[in-house]
């Protein structure tokens, strides 16, 4: 398995970084994110993260795993705005998850992990 080499501070293009414990982990170039669409990223410990950006350029990161089916597919869902808040709809059974809080909009008892994310 190969992970892309970390590029913190060495390139001019901004990159997307996740806060893991106390360190910022660089995932990829910001240009690889398309508004309205997600990408999946692999963390060093095997966890998967779904990264998104919206029209305004804000970035979001939540766990990639869809808690309703167990499949790692949330990055492939469609995003939208509900009452001013960003969400992604699972491509499998269409439950929606708030991209900032990780809470499921269709089932109060379910939430997914969220990550602090920045472009740097």
């Amino acid at each position, binding site marked *: 398995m190969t992970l892309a080499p970390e590029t913190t501070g060495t390139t001019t293009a901004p990159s997307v970084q996740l806060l893991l414990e106390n360190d910022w982990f660089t995932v990829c170039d910001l240009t690889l994110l398309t508004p309205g669409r997600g990408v999946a990223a692999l963390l060093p410990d095997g966890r998967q993260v779904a990264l998104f950006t919206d029209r305004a350029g804000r970035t979001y990161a939540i766990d990639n795993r869809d808690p309703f089916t167990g499949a*790692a597919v949330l990055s*492939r869902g469609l995003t939208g705005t*509900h009452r001013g808040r960003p969400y992604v709809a699972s491509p*499998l059974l269409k439950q929606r998850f708030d991209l900032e809080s990780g809470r499921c909009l269709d089932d109060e008892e379910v939430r997914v992990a969220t990550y602090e994310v920045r472009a740097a």
Partner: protein
Amino acid sequence: MTATPGATPTIVLVGHGMVGQRFLEALAERGLTATHRVVVLCEEPRPAYDRVALTSYFSGRTPEELSLTDMEFIREHGIELRLGDPAESIDRAAREVTARSGLVVGYDTLVLATGSFPFVPPVPGKDAEGCFVYRTIEDLLAIEEFARSRATTGAVVGGGLLGLEAAGALKGLGLTSHIVEFAPRLMPVQVDEGGGAALLRTIENMGLAVHTGVGTQEILVGDDGAVTGMKLSDGSELAADLVVFSAGVRPRDQLARDCGLTVGERGGITVDEQCRTVADPHVFAIGECALATDGRVYGLVAPGYEQAETAAATIAEDERAFTGADLSTKLKLLGVDVASFGDAHGTTEDCLDVVYSDSRAGLYKKLVIGRDGTLLGGILVGDAEAYGTLRAFTGSVPPVSPESLVLPAGAGAPVQLGPSALPDEAVVCSCHNVTKGTIRGAVTEHSCTTVPEVKKCTKAGTGCGSCVKVLGQLVTAELEASGVEVDKGLCGCFGQTREELYEIVLALRITSYRTLLDRYGREDARGGDGCEVCKPAVGSIIASLAPTIGAEGYVLDGEQAALQDTNDHFLANLQKNGSYSIVPRIPGGEITPEKLIVIGEVARDFGLYTKITGGQRIDLFGARVEQLPLIWARLVDAGFESGHAYGKSLRTVKSCVGQTWCRYGVQDSVRMAIDLELRYRGLRSPHKLKSAVSGCARECAEAQSKDFGIIATSNGWNLYVGGNGGATPRHADLLAQDLGDAELVRLIDRFLMFYIRTADRLERTSTWLERIPGGLDHVREVVVEDSLGICEELESLMTAHVANYRDEWAETINDPEKLSRFVSFVNAPDTPDPVVGFVAERDQIKPDLPLLTIGTRPLEGSAQR
């Protein structure tokens, strides 16, 4: 052989027609099938079928489709249904019925539902070869056979309802057709002179010869014993080699007469208000064989159903009575609307007529009004649009003047009387006797919010269907009245319907979702990111119109890419564990051995699960996202292209092997299927589209369950639309007959583009056809007769689609930028998703489901920071 009644009481039903079947259902609903032994003696070789729709056999409905009998129902309720075994005699003293087979059944209750028989006037030659009646499926099969093999000219004796249907059928079989009616006008029972004149003109324009005011004196017979013509009462002769008698029916009461039951002067078993025979409390009579207390024998199905309910209720010791029924009818005869209701002939004392007549347009409308302004009845010919409302108003004073109810729009008819003006007691569905009050109650008390829910709840609209339009208006009105805002908008982002958005996109040439949202979205949605409902819907509209509005047609380009559901985004079908399946296009289901081998090799090399689909293709399961381009590179190289199994677009056009190989085939169905599949491939639509082409009437390709289905005839092709399989099966409706190749394609072009233009999001053609005002007739007017003048535009939209089609997968694998999204992880493009795993089953793979439940476990040997 004798079957004696044991401990359980026995009900014997004689006759299994429409009314007999309804009686059985009424017994079951009241739990009587559980407490009684039920024996049915049926003369015909097949169980109850829809006799009212008998003529639809000639437009392609098979006897099986006409059936009203669910054999599961018969079995479940333990009903002993004996087909082809009619009752021969009744011994009322011993309470026994003897069947033709010799079976003797004892009864506690006997129900006669023997129906009627066609009246054949006692003219010389009436039994000659080539003379038929028009009553059963067997009659129709015999007529069809004779017409195809030996006849060129047909004559129908009787210009009533069935006579006109029979004449239309003969014409459809390619015969020159005559109608001979003794009365001075057609349909003398239902319409008056003015209505008859309007009807006559329209029917003659269709190429049928009508002879009114003459009787049949003799059937002329040749040396071989077959019909050669008819001699009429005015002395003239008519050459014909096939004659259908359709001069009315008579109650079938011989069985009752033979056992001493009371029958009326002109026939019919005399019954009381509970449908019990007046002579014997153990015997009931229902349907066309019964003479009701009002002195009438009812030949319509709705009163028969009511009698069936009454008899069942009485047996269950409930109170119910049948005292007479409304003779209202609405028909579509040879494509002409004919309706009559209430006191259509103005027999009430002192009544007045309001008549509108335009014989040039074949229109005739008459209302019969009482002295006090009460609507008593009426006749509508040529346009029966107002029938549902008018019938429901019968017996009350309508809130607007009668003239305004019959004048055509634009001729001083400012008032459109809606069903909201109806009183609660007004009967909206006369088949099931459902009042407006009941329908309102379904919405207010039973929380129904859609027409299908109300249909299910009240049964309204599930009979002949003529009230469904009024039903829809009532449901909407009631929802609005009870404060439920009926928001017809597509979603939370758009207040417009899909159809309205389509028009905006087309008219203003809008090629971007964001522009549409920011300009036409709801206030609070503008500037936002939309939602998962409208994004794919708008994406589909833009894709459908791409060449015309100047948008990029490729679904993975630019902003379009972000609008697509994951299946469209990855050009494959997402499966439950996050892997994808792949369906290469196999047009018409025809494939060479070489290509078959390539699919096999690809599946083997990538370890994919393979399964044959219902659409005559091969589905390859278990591909990970990063494998998709590698798999498709091989498939494209071998000449395959995308099958669009992932898209709301044309899936497949199935075919049977057709004329080329099949001894029954009459056209080359495979070639047509391939042509159609290649023409419409990649066409984005509100929902998926399925099609099939059958090479003969045996229909092996199941075209009538498709969005558009084609069945070969000896003269060309019949086009069916709006069929569906799945959870809500619907048989397709015949849109047009005997089309040439070019005509067929042109009609499908128009039909599909009209559907794409006007359907709601995720609305299949079947539900669309049921929903749009005017239904099939409206669609036919638009796409066949071009009533809106848009056919040229519809055709050019399709021409642009065809000219601009490109294979999405070929484009993808040749474009590095597009390929870049087919990675498992943005930071580890070649690392397989660890939760996509497989285990073996039946020599293939299946998803490793336990892996999903522990999906977050650390990877073995996972890289260190």
